[in-house]
């Protein structure tokens, strides 16, 4: 043994490569392994696909996405774009996707607000408030979100009265088993211009921020960005409203026969889906916010105060940038969870994407295409979110010297 090793060592010393049989060479072995794994996966895929094709042929189901152009012949309860039973399956699926986006968007905004409040309350020095917040977090996290959806839905269709005896807690707001109905401003040409003014204000704020930062870097002068931005965002639409003569007429819902007319109606399905998702996800967001705030050391605050920063500057320049770095990544994954959980709408009959796709699958028998579409839509959501995450992580990465 020892002799051989010596010879090998001499060979290496002379600069001649050591002769290794190919099954012991790590590089070649890695290639063999990879080919092996690829072959196995390929065989499995071949087996599954060939089975599927035979089965489809036997059941005489046509493959492909041709069914998207066929007439759907089912109604959808709520839709953001014009839709009827005569529309195509493709349009029905778009309606579903828009409904998913609607729930996700409103849900995310509400969750962020509630979650932040609960998270801050959890850290409150007030014993009662902090205990209540922690009870909320614990209870909501430990009950399946689907059960919560069923619970809220049951509250709507069982506990709340019919439209005739609708609860009317404040003027213009009605609660009944047909949903929540509330007054909205009557449509007026001013509203279009107000939205326009809002967009202009947002663009203006963006430009002012850039200019102010540049000026501060060059001259050190501080511009009151926050106050000016707030004034612009609130003021411009308000000014437009005043120019148009301040229309204040409200469209108040009224009971006609068995149902309400006028106002804006949110269906029980939508409200219970939103309630369930928001209350559930807010508990997780609260934990994220708490962890983020606690991650900023006490010394940071003291140091900032000792260089004579004002309290709002301490918050904006020292605490928030550090806390947000910890908060944002888990927060985005919670937002994504909310979007994915909105697929549970199918259980309570809200027409989100999964629910519409499910109906489509049942009607056409195109289950493979249907499931593939569901997966594709959610993959687009999550991949774009992770792209944003990567960009953000790169942006806030600590620059170490």
């Amino acid at each position, binding site marked *: 043994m020892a002799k051989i090793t010596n010879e090998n060592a001499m060979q290496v010393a002379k600069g001649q490569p050591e002769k290794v049989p190919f099954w012991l060479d790590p590089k070649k072995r*890695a290639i063999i*392994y*990879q080919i092996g*794994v*690829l072959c196995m*996966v390929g065989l499995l895929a071949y087996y*599954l696909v060939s*089975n*599927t094709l*035979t*089965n*489809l042929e*036997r059941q005489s189901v046509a493959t492909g996405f041709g069914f998207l152009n066929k007439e759907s012949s089912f109604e959808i309860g709520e839709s953001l774009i014009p839709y009827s039973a005569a529309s195509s399956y493709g349009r029905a699926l778009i309606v579903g996707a828009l409904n998913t986006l609607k729930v996700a968007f409103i849900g995310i905004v509400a969750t962020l607000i509630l979650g932040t409040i609960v998270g801050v309350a959890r850290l*409150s*020095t*007030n*014993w*009662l*408030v902090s205990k*209540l917040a922690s009870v909320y977090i*614990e*209870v909501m*996290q*430990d*009950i*399946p*979100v*689907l*059960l*919560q959806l*069923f*619970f809220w839905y*049951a*509250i709507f269709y*069982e*506990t709340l009265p019919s439209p005739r005896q609708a609860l009317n807690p404040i003027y213009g707001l009605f609660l009944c088993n047909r949903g929540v109905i509330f007054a909205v401003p009557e449509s007026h040409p001013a509203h279009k211009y107000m939205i326009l003014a809002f967009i202009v204000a947002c663009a203006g704020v963006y430009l002012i921020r850039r200019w102010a930062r540049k000026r501060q870097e060059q001259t050190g002068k501080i511009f009151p960005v926050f106050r000016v931005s707030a004034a612009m965002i609130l003021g411009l639409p308000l000014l437009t409203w005043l120019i148009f003569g301040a229309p204040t007429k409200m469209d108040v819902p009224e009971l006609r026969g068995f149902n309400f007319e006028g106002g804006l109606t949110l269906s029980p399905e939508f409200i219970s889906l939103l309630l369930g998702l928001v209350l559930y996800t807010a508990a997780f967001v609260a934990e994220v916010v708490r962890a983020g705030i606690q991650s900023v050391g006490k010394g940071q605050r003291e140091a900032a105060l000792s260089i004579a920063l004002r309290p709002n500057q301490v918050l904006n320049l020292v605490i928030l940038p550090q806390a947000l770095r910890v908060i944002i990544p888990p927060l985005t994954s919670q937002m994504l969870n909310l979007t*994915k*959980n909105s*697929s*549970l709408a*199918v*259980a309570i009959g809200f027409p989100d994407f*999964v629910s519409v796709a*499910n109906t489509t*699958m049942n009607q056409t028998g195109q*289950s*493979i295409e*249907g*499931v593939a579409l*569901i*997966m594709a839509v*959610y*993959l687009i*959501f*999550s*991949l774009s979110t*992770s792209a944003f995450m990567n960009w953000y992580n790169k942006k806030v990465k600590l620059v170490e010297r």
Partner: protein
Amino acid sequence: MEVYVQQKPVEVLKPPVTSIGVIGWVKSNLFNGWFNSLLTIITLYLLWKVIPPFVRWAFIDSVWRSTGKVCRNIDGACWSIIATNFRFILFGFFPYDQQWRPLIAILILFGLLFYSRDRNHWTKHLGYAWIIGLVVMGFLMRGGLFGLPSVEATKWGGLPLTLLLSIFGLTAAYPLGVLLALGRQSKMPTIRWMSVIYIELIRGVPLISLLFMGSFIFPLFLPEGMNFPTILRALVAIILFTAAYIAEVVRGGLQGMSRGQYEAAESIGLNYYLTMRLVILPQALKIVIPPTVSILISAFKDTSLVVIIALWDLLKTTQSVLSNPQWMGFSREAYLFVAILYFLGCFSMANYSRKLEKELSREN
């Protein structure tokens, strides 16, 4: 020079009554500052508005043993819906006179879980005990031997099904997840990319789409004549889903290992398999025990989704009781009961996870 020496003992001043005892506690925890005082008063008012009516509804005005008709005439909660349908909610369509079998299976499971709480008990023998326990539980559910009548898997339901899906889902997903995590850390590009694609794909889609795949597409994947019961198809979907999440957790543990560990293992001549089995995985998996428990918690909660593909889990049996005309309209009571069951399960697991986390951080 005059020296002054204190002769008498200094009188010890007690802190004022307002800063110690109950009053002091209340003052420093509830009424420090006007803002906190306002918060306390508002919170107390809200609690006063909510808790007494709830107690009245749930306990004082409630009925516990009656028919559905009696319930309709009272103001309080109708817990009779639970008391009357208790066994159906818990065991589903399992034959009535055989329901002691799932009960014993659940008790064995709880016993094993309780014994496994202490990490000092984690030995080889416990592993054998788990294997024997799982076999006995499977036998109790399935029957067909030793004079026990056999019960089809389609009749399994209620709590045993929920527990079965989460426990088997996690135990089967665990090795798969570890393999995927190792694959993701691998130096071989094909294997790494396949793992990455699998993990990201699964984590990007909701569980419900996988359950749909299980119930609609799996039958197409199989050759003609071969068919799985729905429970197994749902289980496969849950396993595939959970494995991706476990893989991410385990990857966290693997990334926490220092290079020195790999180098040390290499220097004593261990190959890849032995390095992983003897050096890396034992340490990495120990770090990730707490997050693994939280995956178990979410798997336990996620099993409720099988309602959507019409499996008779705890939630579905409850809903079926609620669709009985006699008990229609008592959803609040029924769902509260199920929520309490889920809460107890998740809360004890979460507590255990916190305890473990403390223990582990003390050791390191």
